[in-house]
């Protein structure tokens, strides 16, 4: 029984880890730089397909077979290709005012989806199969931890601060000598590269990827995760990913009427979060935790005879 439960939970946990990595990448773009990418899943799919193409086609040609080395290189390939794809979209759009980036990333995702369906060497509409199993749950969670840690460090560097300064007030940031175009571009590229990492992990864990992964609905799920969790914090993105992966699993036992309408709840929560609590559910969790802490410390204070 226990063993079955463990075996059953591997897939949802892997998906949670991968969604969390995607969400962390988008958090940097959305919460950090204040740019909306509606094609995040496409960058993820580009990373995944490139990494898979590397291990299936390029690796035997290069004579690489050591799994650890192969996985590391394919992670680099995934991140690098997603970064290049990001460069193509972001360079024209970030020069413009307005919400063009959101629509152009969306359009780019459609193009990527269309292209993936039409390339036969990587499976076309049938999807890319026959990818060796190189990554697993420990890989996914190690990369998640590494990305989380690295982003937390990055946010405190000069560039990390410049990105948030640009988001808060572009004109003020420019007057401080920040190259706002370069900071926005670097946030977008870094976020896309992280999505590519997630793609490389996904294809080598599930040994399969289809053009559906570049679909608009997948990109929306990542936006939902980041916004619902709270787009101003890294913890919020991971929390959001957890909510989005866990809710369908929990609702598995609920009646059909409730289960099938989960996108309606998510949409309502997003509108609610934007209107009333822009910091997302993460702030709620932290507030509860803090109240708990306060209660503890006040009872401790009373015991010590302090003012409490």
């Amino acid at each position, binding site marked *: 029984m226990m063993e079955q439960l463990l075996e059953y939970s591997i897939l949802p946990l892997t998906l949670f880890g991968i969604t969390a990595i995607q969400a962390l990448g988008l958090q940097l773009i959305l919460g950090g730089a204040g740019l909306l990418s509606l094609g995040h899943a496409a960058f993820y799919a580009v990373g995944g397909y490139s990494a898979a193409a590397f291990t299936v086609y390029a690796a035997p040609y290069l004579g690489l077979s050591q799994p650890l080395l192969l996985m590391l290189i394919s992670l680099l390939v995934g991140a690098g290709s997603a970064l290049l794809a990001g460069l193509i979209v972001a360079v024209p759009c970030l*020069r413009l005012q307005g919400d063009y980036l959101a629509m152009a990333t969306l359009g780019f995702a459609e193009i990527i989806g269309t292209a993936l369906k039409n390339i036969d060497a990587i499976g076309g509409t049938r999807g890319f199969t026959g990818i060796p199993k190189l990554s697993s749950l420990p890989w996914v969670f190690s990369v998640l931890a590494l990305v989380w840690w690295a982003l937390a460090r990055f946010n405190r560097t000069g560039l990390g601060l410049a990105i948030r300064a640009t988001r808060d007030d572009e004109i003020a940031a420019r007057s401080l000598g920040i190259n706002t175009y370069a900071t926005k571009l670097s946030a977008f590229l870094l976020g896309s590269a992280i999505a590519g990492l997630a793609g490389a992990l996904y294809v080598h864990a599930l040994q399969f990827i289809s053009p559906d992964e570049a679909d608009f609905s997948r990109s929306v799920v990542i936006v939902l995760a980041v916004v619902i969790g709270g787009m101003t914090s890294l913890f919020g993105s991971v929390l959001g990913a957890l909510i989005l992966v866990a809710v369908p699993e929990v609702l598995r036992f609920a009646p059909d009427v409730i289960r099938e309408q989960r996108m309606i709840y998510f949409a309502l929560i997003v509108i609610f979060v934007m209107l009333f609590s822009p910091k997302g559910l993460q702030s709620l969790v932290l507030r509860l935790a803090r109240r708990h802490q306060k209660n503890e410390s006040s009872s401790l204070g009373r015991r010590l005879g302090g003012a409490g």
Partner: protein
Amino acid sequence: MFDLIQYLVDGLAVGSVYALIALGYSMVFGVLQLVNFAHGELFMVGAYFVMYAISLGLPWPVALGLGMCFVGLFAVAMERLCYKPLRGAGKLAPLITAVGLSLLLQNLVQAILGPNPQSYPARVPEGKLSQFFGQYLPDPSQLQIPHLPDGLFDWNDLVIRHRDLMIFTIAVFVTLGLELFLRKTRPGRGIRALALQPNAAKLVGVPFDFTISMTFFIGAALAVVAGLLQGMADNQVTPYMGISSGLKAFAAAVLGGIGVIPGALLGGLVLGIAERLLVGYDLSTYKDGAAFFILIIVLLLRPQGLLGKARMVKV
């Protein structure tokens, strides 16, 4: 060469529907600099509303009028409840809210009316709703369902279907009417003043909230016209038509020059023709990517669109 002309003509009808949706994107973007991401869903809701109203036995002009009012008021309510509180909160918050609204509408319609395409005369899907409404829906066999004209002009093998011509004519007249409204009437000039310089417009007494509500109302009403035309031309309405046509219409608005009324028409027509050409030359698998390919090329080469003027952003 001859095929080419035929495809150009065929593309006009598809493009006209994009153009009617694009007008709404363009107007709202003009006054608020907001991409009303949920605009495509208004087109979808409108298409359903009109289809059900006609299936209830209402004559089509009444159904269309009711649909325009209902969806228009719905858009006004949406703006008041969801976008207005976020004014001054930057551009990101209303945009994300709009994505949420789009998702909500699409899934609500899917939950209530079912995910499958519906055609004339519409039926309520099986279930409790069907028992409740079933008694009110008239017998489909007795219903006079209006449809677009069937005939065609045949002119040296160049075939023009009457209905394509009709859709194109409607789109051109609606665009002309809108342009006249914006130039000649007082409320129309109010919209243009807000788009040009919001603070100065407020100073000279343009009612801000009313004008914005009106912009949303008109945009939504035009989307309902597009919904009726598309629903009749394809004889099919689905919960997903809003997202696909809506996004292409946005691309059309950007292509023509967002905020420019004739630009929306031009952009829609160019896009419709481009898609028809791809289908004609056996590249139909690339059809859905074409709009966005054009969008990215336009953003690269001429971000203000075909008919737009580059505007300096003042600090």
